[in-house]
């Protein structure tokens, strides 16, 4: 438990850091506000509309695929540590798991989800 308590301390120090840094630089930096400075940047022309619009669905696809594969790696972790103890049983279990996953991998590849146009 003591290990996690010291992690908590480091988190506190780390959270304090950006607050300290930003406030210190606030004391030093100038502030000359003007409307043009606070306008949204768009290559020098007047901003036309909001930025929060529709964007490519591919980003969602990547996110979904990432979820599946990252959960896979998390499931691999306990097997990786206990590999020798689990022996043949572990290998077969893992083989089944990976087979299902690689089946899906082949499917998304054939559907073209991995190709970015």
């Amino acid at each position, binding site marked *: 438990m003591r290990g996690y308590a010291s*992690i908590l301390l480091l988190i506190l*120090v780390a959270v304090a850091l*950006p607050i300290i840094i930003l406030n210190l630089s606030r004391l030093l*930096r100038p502030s000359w506000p003007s409307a043009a400075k606070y306008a949204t940047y768009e290559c020098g022309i007047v901003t036309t509309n909001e930025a929060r619009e529709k964007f490519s669905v591919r*980003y969602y696809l990547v996110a979904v695929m990432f979820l599946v594969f990252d959960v896979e790696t998390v499931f691999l972790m306990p097997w990786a540590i206990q590999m020798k103890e689990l022996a043949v049983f572990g290998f077969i279990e893992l083989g089944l798991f990976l087979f299902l996953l690689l089946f899906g991998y082949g499917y998304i590849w054939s559907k073209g989800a991995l190709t970015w146009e």
Partner: protein
Amino acid sequence: MPTPTLTQSIVITLIQCLLVVIFVFVVVPLTVFAERKVLGHLQQRLGSTRVASGHVGFSGWMNRTMWKMGRVPVLSYWRGIPGLVGDVLKLILKEDIMPAKADKFVFFLAPSISMVAAIVVFAAISFVPGTFFTFPAWFPYLGGLPVSGGIADINVGLLWILGVATVGVYGIVLAGWSSNSKYPLLGGLRSAAQMVSYEVPLTLSLLAPVVLAASLNFSEMSSRMATGMPAWALVPQVIGFLLYLTCGFAETNRLPFDMPEAENELVAGFHTEYSGMKFGLFYLAEYINMTVVSALASAFFLGGPWLLPFGLQGLLNPYLPGFLSWFGQPHAIFFVAKIVFLLFTYIWVRGTIPRYRYDQIMAVGWKYLIPLALVNLLLAAVIRCFAV
């Protein structure tokens, strides 16, 4: 050895946290400085290797005197320092501009998340197994107490590192979204997609050392990888190392996977609207992440705090004079030296390889690196079954 009381161990942990912060704030500026100089030499950029204050004042006098004596002045190795000083001063003194349309709180939160995530990772990194140093007996309050080489030697160290390092993606996405501007939004989405894509092969390539060492604990893994393996067991790890380094480059958004700063497409990516110290925090976080990636590579693939692999370092012991006896033991200096070498590799690659196209990056990550990482993992599993 005396056991510390609760307050004493809290103070010791605070000292360790302070050491980590100092380490970070020493390594990052030096890396920025080295980057200017190395790139200057690699790409014949004149300014960054020559700018110096070596003409005026005391340093100028010393430079001229040493040239007259026929020696290359020491200060000329430090040419380019004014560039670094200028960088830092500009980051601190620059006016902080927040676009009127931005989401104020998230705009502030994003760089802070990046920074905090980058530093908290260090909790599980141990610079040397066991004791780092012991306070001398005369030291007030803490005399005779040991300071361990890492802040928290937890069982799930690697899991902690990977988990917290991924939180940095939130910083980038939130920065892109909160700016309410088109380039940052696109840049944020792009780099987030790139980072999560390379997260998978990165974790898979790190699983091979986990299999070989049968542990997730940072110091156990690094010591078993450095001393507990026959030489040929590490052969598949050459693939793993290159794989990990590639993914690490993509994960820290460095060239040749430098999507956020694809200047000619996206101005400056997710931090287009940021200025002053808020941008500085992103900058810091990027370099801290580089250091973390290098630290993991050095611990799991290059032998971490051991100078020589396979227990060969112990053979040095009888031949070392007293003041060099630490050469026979694992030492934080060797660990840091390997980190520095890998940071140099970062700069070297940046100076050598041009940027990929975005579709190429995504294709390489999903189509080649993931299968390769699985094959590497299988190789490691076979070796662990039959040999180690």
